[in-house]
């Protein structure tokens, strides 16, 4: 497949505006400036583009909600918090192809009549910050940003806002709180951000990759776009593959590529040709799959039918040597560390799960611990304020469901996970 999102990134100067323009960049912007905002929204709707941040919400529909709200001003926020462990697909876009994101945001801003955009960039990407800021500066110089974009009287200002190490700020309402200078705790919904978001004004939050798809939709038209990949969630998709594969990295493939294809065709198979044990297909919050469940098309619609989720498309591959309870423990430690502390089950329940897993992995687990763990996870699941707590419960439940024997082995043989 021809690359679009990662087009030109082999070029060492890909982040430079001139290189980007040379490769055909900012053409879609010119086109968009000649379109009515409502028509852009219509095209995005027609394209079938779904948000790439994890939930797969139809982008055009989200925009239409915000556009319909009469409140002004409107804000456009880019979710560049990329915090889901295993996910590093937005990073090449941010570091190597920043103008694609910027172009996508300007077009989106125009579509929504938003005058201000912010890129909420995770604190862990300091280099991306410098690259984005340089790129934004160039875009201002070329009059792609500012008070009078391309002389069309359209205004759009954009700047980078750096997060400071909080996974929960990837959740859109927590992101907004954080951008407002508060503790990044999720807000009650409704009101949804499209009605009351940043500074209580209608706000659209989209993922980096989502915005980066927008110029493509305009470039090839919604009909062509909708023909790429899966029929009900089309388009190119970035997969970040890590763990025990020969060629880990970020791959741009059509939506709906199977997990098996990703691992064996594109990434060259398991490192050292060892046996595959498990795969987490969409970032750590998505259910782990055993090695015999690889023939699922990776998209928002089909993955749930196969017992997992597309999430952020972060494929983590574990070979036969991996101690899965230990992976599970590390994942739960992550959730414990990232719980915002607002709601009871997440704040207290995850720590409890961590301590049970800790004793299992530490070789001091008790016979009833697996059931207790499941019970605690059940008490967390579905009762938290936001989906973060569910993510933790999902991890525990699916690791045990698929690999219970490994947990039992730790308990029965009193083996300590290495170290």
């Amino acid at each position, binding site marked *: 497949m021809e690359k679009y999102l990662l087009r030109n990134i082999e070029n060492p100067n890909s982040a430079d505006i001139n290189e980007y323009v040379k490769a055909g960049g900012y053409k879609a912007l010119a086109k968009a400036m000649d379109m009515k905002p409502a028509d852009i929204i219509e095209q995005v709707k027609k394209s079938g583009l779904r948000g790439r941040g994890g939930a797969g919400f139809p982008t055009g529909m989200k925009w239409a909600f915000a556009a319909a709200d009469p409140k002004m001003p409107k804000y456009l926020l880019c979710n560049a918090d990329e915090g889901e462990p295993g996910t590093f697909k937005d990073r090449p876009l941010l570091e190597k192809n920043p103008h694609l994101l910027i172009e996508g945001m300007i077009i989106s801003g125009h579509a929504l009549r938003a005058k201000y955009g912010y890129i909420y960039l995770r604190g862990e990407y300091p280099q991306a910050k410098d690259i984005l800021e340089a790129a934004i500066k160039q875009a201002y110089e070329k009059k792609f940003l500012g008070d009078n974009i391309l002389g069309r009287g359209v205004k759009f200002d954009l700047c980078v806002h750096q997060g400071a190490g909080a996974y929960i700020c990837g959740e859109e309402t927590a992101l907004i709180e954080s951008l407002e200078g508060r503790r990044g705790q999720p807000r*009650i919904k409704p009101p949804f951000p499209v009605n009351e978001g940043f500074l209580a004004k209608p706000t659209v939050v989209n993922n980096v990759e989502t915005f980066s798809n927008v110029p493509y939709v305009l470039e090839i038209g919604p009909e062509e776009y909708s023909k790429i990949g899966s029929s009900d969630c089309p388009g190119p998709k970035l997969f970040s593959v890590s763990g025990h594969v020969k060629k880990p990295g970020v791959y741009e493939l059509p939506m709906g590529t199977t997990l098996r294809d990703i691992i064996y065709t594109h990434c060259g198979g398991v490192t050292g040709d060892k046996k595959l044990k498990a795969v987490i297909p969409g970032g750590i919050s998505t259910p782990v799959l055993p090695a015999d469940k690889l023939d699922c098309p990776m998209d928002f619609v089909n993955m749930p039918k196969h017992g997992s989720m597309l999430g952020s498309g972060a494929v983590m591959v574990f070979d036969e040597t991996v101690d899965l309870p230990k992976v599970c423990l590390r994942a739960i430690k992550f959730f414990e560390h990232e*719980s*915002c*502390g607002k709601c*009871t089950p997440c*704040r207290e329940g995850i720590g409890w799960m961590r301590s049970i897993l800790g004793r299992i992995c530490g070789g001091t687990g008790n016979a009833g611990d697996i059931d207790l763990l499941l019970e605690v996870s059940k*008490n967390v699941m579905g*009762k*938290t304020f936001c989906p973060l707590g569910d993510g933790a419960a999902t991890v525990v439940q699916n690791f045990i469901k698929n690999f219970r024997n490994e947990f039992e082995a730790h308990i029965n043989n009193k083996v300590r996970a290495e170290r």
Partner: protein
Amino acid sequence: MITVTINGKQIKLEKPVSILEAAKMTGIKIPTLCHHKSLEAYGGCRLCLVEIEKMPRLQASCTQYVTDGMVVWTETGRVVEARKAMLEFLLINHALDCPYCDKAGECDLQDLVMKYGPAAGRFTEGKRKHPESYDDPIIVRNMERCISCTRCVRMCSKVQGASAISMVNRTSKTFVEPFSGGRYNCEYCGNCINVCPVGAIMSRLHKHTYRPWFIEKTVDTVCSFCGVGCSVTAQIRGNSIVRIIPESEKGLNRGLLCNRGRFGYDYISNSGRLKSPMIRKNGSLQETTWSEAFMYIAQKIKEIKEKNGGAAIAGVASGRCTNEDNYVFQKFMRLVVGSNNIDSIAGFAYAPARKFFEKIFGQGVTANPIQGISRSDGIFVIGGDPTAINPVLGLQIRAASQKDIPVATVGYAPGLKGFAANRLIPKPSTEAALLAALLTEMLKRKPLPAEKTPFEEIIGKIQPVSLNEAESACGIASGEISACVDSLSGMTNPALVIGRDIIQRSEGQANLLLLAALAQALNGRIYLSSELPNEQGLIDMGCLPDMLPGGRPVAVDSFRKRYGEFFNAEVPSAQGLSLMEMVEGAHSGNIKALYVMGENIAFNIPDNKFVKDALSRLELLVVQDIFTTETTRFAHVVLPAASWAEREGSYTNLEGRMQHLKKAIDSVAGLEDWKIIAEVSKVLGVDMNYRDSRDILAEIAKVSPLHKGVTYEDMDSGECMWPYKGEPLRHDLNIVGIDMPDMKALLKKPEKDKVYIGVDKVLFHSASLSRNSFALNSIYSEPHAKIGKNLAAKLSVASGDHISISTGAGAIELAAVIDSDMPDNIVLVPNNFEGRGAFRVMGWKMNAAFKAPALDGMEAVLKKLERVSAEVSE
């Protein structure tokens, strides 16, 4: 119309509410921990989960709104399991030290565990450790008990507007902390203590002093500190109050209190309370019996009256005493002593301002409900910081500000910093220039109607002042003034909150006229700050030299006659002396006897030295009080009174609401003030014949045209508002006797290099009574002199350095506190601490119109002291 079914019960609702609220309406209680009625929904504790048909997940009922046709179940097996699970989670990091914890017995968590638990406690690892913090004198923080409901933090920021505490960290390592990590250094409203559902934030003053089940009796009464009149509940064991909590349902304070109301009541059990009547013998006060004291006073009064006439005797009433006390006192002065010489500290500012506004707009113009402030569309504050003087009223202003209602403040109002969009801080005593410019500009934007009322005609005669003239006089940039006008002109019915500082001035009357004109131009409602709980009431009771009960002027024959006829006695026709004139009279020898009820005039009137000098010349000084004060030291007779908690009666607050003060405990030594006076009266041959305060109120209800038929039951119903059941005086449209301000004189600039002294109103103190509160002293134990940063730099003084402040009247030494917000040429000193009050160094200066102190233009010389301040000698 929305129809919902909760546990099989159907209800219909006009507008969507949360499931929690809807359930409450049908009498179904859903358990919560993070929810509080004063706060917005939070959704954190997850205890309120309920089952909703057609929804696969349980939903939090505090955040989920009802929709038409929704079917909700609040106690299904699934729900109960979930609640149990939440409680089990909460107990993971909750210290299970209930036997030691003061909250036991009134702990929401404990109650819920008893109902849904007992959780099996399957969590076996160690709990979070966090030693109890005793860094603060008032608040104990035990973060091992905190359940992260954040009620305290939300209360502190959203309701109190103080934002003194915050949740720090995240995850289960989250806890509540003040900025310093130790001492709170906050406003000590204690509202955080009140809303904590567990024992995480508790009052240190009450630590281990009680258990909820020790409380034998509760009495709903009214706070004794300021003119707001918050409803409080006294919790009593034996004959002592173990705790004061806000009354949350009926009171105008809606469950809020300030530091004074919540913690300051402990003065009543101070061991320094007066225990016995005393008579001066051989130069010193010696204990005596009540009857001897009554005889002595009566004898002396009789003598003086016979020799010098009733006019040589004067009485000082008190805004801390009840309506009943004050009524009996003025009756005694007028009918028994035969003198209209009765006044109080309320005569310094509250009464003249009220009289002035009533002259223009009619009686009762300042009687506006406090709750209306947060519902108005704009607020203008001048003359003092309401958040310090009338804290719970101040919260109304902050609440309005948080709803984006524009607030403008004139003068140094630190408690409203961050809440006022327009903050104008003029140079000392130049408010008139600013007000005149505001008025001039306002009238340009909204001219007065062509058909003029008499007052509008008067306004028309006020000389206009330009923005530039105002700028050069008061030092505020004209742009800032006009920005304030922009904001004012958008208001349609704003609240004007007016404090003492603007009234107790040489140009006080000009200020009031300009404010009245502004009120007219803005269509504003006037609120007068009131520092004592019953200033309004004592005025209504006739404790003014020119007013009879019910706000009837002494000067009008028919009123005087009606009043006299009622008692078959004659009311003297000559207007009495103001408090300041009484002191002058004592000094000059015209006043021979002064009868003081519950007031510390030797301290609370500027120029303490002059006052003391005057008092020492009296033939008779009678003082009723609950403590030894600067004034009792000069008394010939001192009589111990019952404290606020030890008497029944009524207070009338600044909004004109009469409230029932109930007796909570018995007085060990003191008598009600009215009773003492009635006894003296009896010896003088007039038997007042009251059995209790009810009898007095019944008489008031007959005598005062305003209080027709008023009863305590009316007050208990909660809405006994001005004009009660009676008739205010008809308003005379012809406004006479208003002097036009001389603008030229008012535009004179203050001298640049001079420093003037002003009175700092401290949130933690209330005149001189609060110095007897252990709690309030532990929050604020030392007076400070506040200065601005430029003045501090000029003196090379840092916060904490000691300075001396000297004026023509005397000198004091205090530690300095620097507040970068203060104007340059002023030093503010509180008047609460013995020997070091502002009035010690403020001279005797009378505002001729009000016959009350003018506190302006008192020059001071400040010097940095190298040594740490020494004791200040008398």
